[in-house]
């Protein structure tokens, strides 16, 4: 393929390697704006079943592995008859290239050895045997790459990454207890054997690094990789291959019958213990080798800790003597059981009873998380599957499967998905469900079997601010005039009952029943607006009590897990001790996860199963802080990027002469107006410097901007400022301290005489403020018991379009009234919920 060739979203940049099993290209992923490596199975080989099988084997193998020392698989695809893998692009050199310049220092060899062993351990625990470990399949990458927990004390200048699982063998992964199983099974009883993936007798791999049983075409298991690791260690420390020959036959003869020259002869300064570790790895009999990569890893770590003195016969501490004795016993090769016992003795005291595994799940192409303001992730209590909401529906992903699948019947733009305690059902909220012929809408709480079927309506309610399913009760938070706090509903059709009511200027979120359902753990914030969840409290309260106990300040999204209170602050998850029946925490908070995506509703995108499995979305915390692009989109959906820096934009408005844009830049810490000169792409701050929060700008015909400003003291005003920013803003109307009800400017009439704005909160109306009058008393334009907002006067001044919702959600039905005689008539012009904006086309008519 030539540079510029496209494989879906990937554009080929250059060929970076070729071999018998395919070509590897550097490519650019246009969606993610990153370099990737694409391994392409040539057309000629695509017809070869064995070649395709190997290719697919690699995909399957690597897709199961997410590890800092294993090259990541991002994607698989096919173009015409060519199949390809999209993998992590690694900059650096192969270990083989490095070894061409001579041996490594002992410290580097040990460091890389630990990393490779760590990667193999990960693969072996997944039931994957690499079968082709060699220096050419280890990349030494530069700069910034993450290391695993066990390899975090680095000395080598680069990170080792294991590549090329094209010859890998797959089998059901051993359980987490396999480490002990393998050790106990040293007599050869239950070392996980893997059914041959190739025809019996077929030799795959590179002879110089092939274990005897592999050379003989026999059955191989993880211990073949341990042999190869021994070869790589040998080569790193001595600069020579353990088994070399002028012909394949001589190499094979060496593998089968000769021992390599002792490390001590070639590298006298190498720790004797390292020589012994290599010798054990290279035992001809698989039963005489280390029985797991983890054991090799521990040995190498220990040697690294002991420095060059490791293995000397006179260690200074008794513990080391014991280790040496066991090493010697292990080195005797015949004392297999003793080797196992020795390896066990070498283990540090376990801190964590089970070793956790981290792996990533990438949404298939074309899927995007939806409802970014609400939780779109859940995990079943048994940890066997998780659910996420993408493309307006729920997908299920079994932990032990590669693919997710949509849950039929849930394509209703749901939010706040959760599992039932038995894991057999999911519940979720569907906003804006049309209830009757009048177009009245409500949010409906539904449930559906995980095996699909027909959703069951549990109740109508308001927009959810988080929910959980405990026993046969679903508790949820809601912040509307109907229910302002925490409610509960049975998991069968019924009516919600209020459990806890919070203050009018407060919002509750993410409730959980704890202590046998006697108390509610939830978050509560005062006021709304960016950053207010950062100041929220995590509290506990009994439904029958007015007393509320604050557990943590500046926290949100609480969970009670293993007698620890888990909570989030600005994208970092903390834990602190707490007994379920306590109303207090104990100990100090400990950050346990850095970088979790948060939402504007105060929840974090994480879910924890009863079996201890965690799933979360990595992120920078609040989505509001993430940079976004301004684009033009024509009526056919064709996009044109606007020359402007990427910022966390909100509320863009085009000036009447269409030469400028005023736009809000909103972060969790600030919110300001900015103007963008479209011809120059220069973004300039318009808001006066200060701690006020300015947003919701609208243009006036004379080139000024009207906006809302929330001052540091919490009072709100509608302001006007010249777009040049040379004059200070003037206050049009001071709205005072209005809890949860903010004056949001929405449009200015074409004659410039009227501003429409809204209140929002416990009552929401479209309001009008005369700009051509000294009387600054606003008058309601549309005033009903429902929520009306986004009131926009059409460019010709004849119509008022607005959104009507009876629940106060962001969307509702679209209505149009004549303007200014708004009471003369009204028409519902939408057939499904939406939001309003008055369009302007060349014909002068309006569209919404």
């Amino acid at each position, binding site marked *: 393929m030539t540079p510029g060739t496209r494989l879906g979203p990937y554009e080929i940049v250059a060929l970076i390697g070729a071999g018998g099993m395919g070509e590897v290209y550097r490519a650019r992923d246009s969606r993610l704006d990153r370099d990737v490596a694409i391994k392409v199975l040539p057309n000629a080989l695509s017809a070869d079943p064995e070649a395709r099988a190997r290719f697919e084997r690699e995909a399957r193998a690597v897709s199961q592995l997410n590890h800092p020392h294993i090259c990541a698989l991002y994607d698989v695809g096919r173009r015409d008859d060519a199949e390809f893998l999209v993998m992590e692009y690694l900059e650096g050199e192969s270990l083989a290239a490095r070894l061409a310049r001579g041996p490594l220092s002992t410290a580097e060899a040990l460091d890389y050895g630990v990393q490779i062993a760590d990667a193999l351990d990960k693969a072996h625990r997944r039931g994957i045997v690499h079968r082709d470990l060699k220096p050419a399949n280890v990349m030494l990458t530069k700069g910034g790459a993450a290391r695993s927990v066990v390899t975090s004390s680095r000395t080598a200048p680069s990170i080792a990454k294991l590549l090329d699982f094209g010859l890998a063998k797959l089998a059901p992964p051993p359980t987490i207890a396999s480490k002990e199983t393998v050790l106990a099974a040293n007599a050869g009883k239950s070392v996980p054997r893997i059914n041959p993936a190739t025809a019996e007798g077929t030799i795959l791999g590179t002879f110089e690094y092939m274990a005897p049983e592999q050379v003989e075409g026999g059955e191989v298991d993880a211990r073949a990789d341990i042999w190869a690791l021994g070869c790589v260690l040998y080569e790193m420390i001595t600069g020579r291959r353990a088994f070399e020959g002028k012909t394949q036959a001589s190499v094979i003869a060496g593998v089968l019958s000769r021992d390599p020259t002792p490390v001590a002869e070639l590298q006298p300064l190498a720790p004797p213990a390292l020589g012994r570790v290599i010798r054990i790895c290279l035992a001809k009999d698989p039963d005489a080798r280390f029985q797991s990569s983890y054991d090799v890893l521990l040995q190498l770590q220990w040697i690294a800790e002991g420095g060059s003195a490791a293995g000397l016969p006179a260690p200074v501490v008794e513990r080391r003597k014991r280790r040496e004795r066991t090493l010697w016993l292990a080195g005797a090769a015949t004392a297999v059981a003793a080797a196992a016992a020795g390896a066990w003795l070498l283990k540090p005291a376990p801190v964590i009873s089970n070793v956790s595994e981290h792996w990533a799940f990438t949404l298939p192409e074309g899927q995007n*998380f939806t*409802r970014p303001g609400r939780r779109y992730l859940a995990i079943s209590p048994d940890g066997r599957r998780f659910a996420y909401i993408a493309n307006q529906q729920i997908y299920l992903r079994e932990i032990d499967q590669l693919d997710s699948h949509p849950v039929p019947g849930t394509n209703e733009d749901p939010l706040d998905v959760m599992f039932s305690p038995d894991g057999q059902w999911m519940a979720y909220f569907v906003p804006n469900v049309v209830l009757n012929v009048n177009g009245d809408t409500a949010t409906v709480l539904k449930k559906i079997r995980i095996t699909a079927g027909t959703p069951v309506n549990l109740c109508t309610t308001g927009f959810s601010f988080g929910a959980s399913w405990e026993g046969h009760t679903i508790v949820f938070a809601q912040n509307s005039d109907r229910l302002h706090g925490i409610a509960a509903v049975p998991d069968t059709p019924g009516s919600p009952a209020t459990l806890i009511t919070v203050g009018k200027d407060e919002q509750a979120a993410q409730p959980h029943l704890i202590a046998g359902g006697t108390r509610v753990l939830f978050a509560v914030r005062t006021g709304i607006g960016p950053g207010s969840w950062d100041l929220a409290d995590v509290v506990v309260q009994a439904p029958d009590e007015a007393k509320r106990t604050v557990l943590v300040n500046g926290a949100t999204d609480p969970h009670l897990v293993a007698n620890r209170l888990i909570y989030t602050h600005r994208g970092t998850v903390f834990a602190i001790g707490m007994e379920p029946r306590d109303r207090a925490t104990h100990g100090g908070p400990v950050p346990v996860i850095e970088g979790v995506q948060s939402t504007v509703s105060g929840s974090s995108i994480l879910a*924890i199963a009863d079996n201890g499995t965690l799933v979360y979305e990595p*992120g920078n915390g609040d989505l509001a802080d*993430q940079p976004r692009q301004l684009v033009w989109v024509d009526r056919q*959906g064709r996009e044109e990027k606007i020359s402007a820096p990427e910022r966390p934009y*909100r509320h863009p408005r085009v000036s009447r002469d269409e030469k400028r844009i005023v736009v809000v830049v909103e972060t969790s810490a600030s919110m300001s107006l900015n103007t963008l000169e479209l011809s120059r792409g220069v973004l300039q701050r318009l808001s006066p410097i200060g701690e006020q929060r300015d*947003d919701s700008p609208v243009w006036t015909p004379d080139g000024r901007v009207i906006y809302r400003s929330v001052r540091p003291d919490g009072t709100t005003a509608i302001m006007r400022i010249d777009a040049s920013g040379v004059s200070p803003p003037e206050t049009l109307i001071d709205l005072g301290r209005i809890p949860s009800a903010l004056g949001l400017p929405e449009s200015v009439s074409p004659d410039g005489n009227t501003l429409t704005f809204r209140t929002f909160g416990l009552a929401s109306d479209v309001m009008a403020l005369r700009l051509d009058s000294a009387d600054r008393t606003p008058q309601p334009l549309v005033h009903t018991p429902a929520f009306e907002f986004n009131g926009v006067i059409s460019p010709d001044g004849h119509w008022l379009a607005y959104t009507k919702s009876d629940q106060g959600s962001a969307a509702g039905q679209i209505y149009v009234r004549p303007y200014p005689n708004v009471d003369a008539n009204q028409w519902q012009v939408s057939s499904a919920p939406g939001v309003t904006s008055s369009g302007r086309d*060349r014909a002068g008519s309006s569209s919404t």
Partner: protein
Amino acid sequence: MNGPGTKMMSVTVAPGGMFGTATELFDAHTYAPPSRNGIDYDTARDGRFLMIKEPLPQGNANARTTLTVVTHWTDELRARVK
């Protein structure tokens, strides 16, 4: 927009108050969804829409299309938080 972040819809308005049927213009799910605090798009005279494109996956740990799964996490938790 029809449904939060879903589709951009259009309704024509003829003189005298004759409204057409809502028709879909384009899929808008990759743009900023509506929020309670205002409209996140605008229109130009030529019919184009000024939109905010949602944060793109960055190809790193912050990618918005990636989930991380950690098995036995509560064992880690117990070990780290006494």
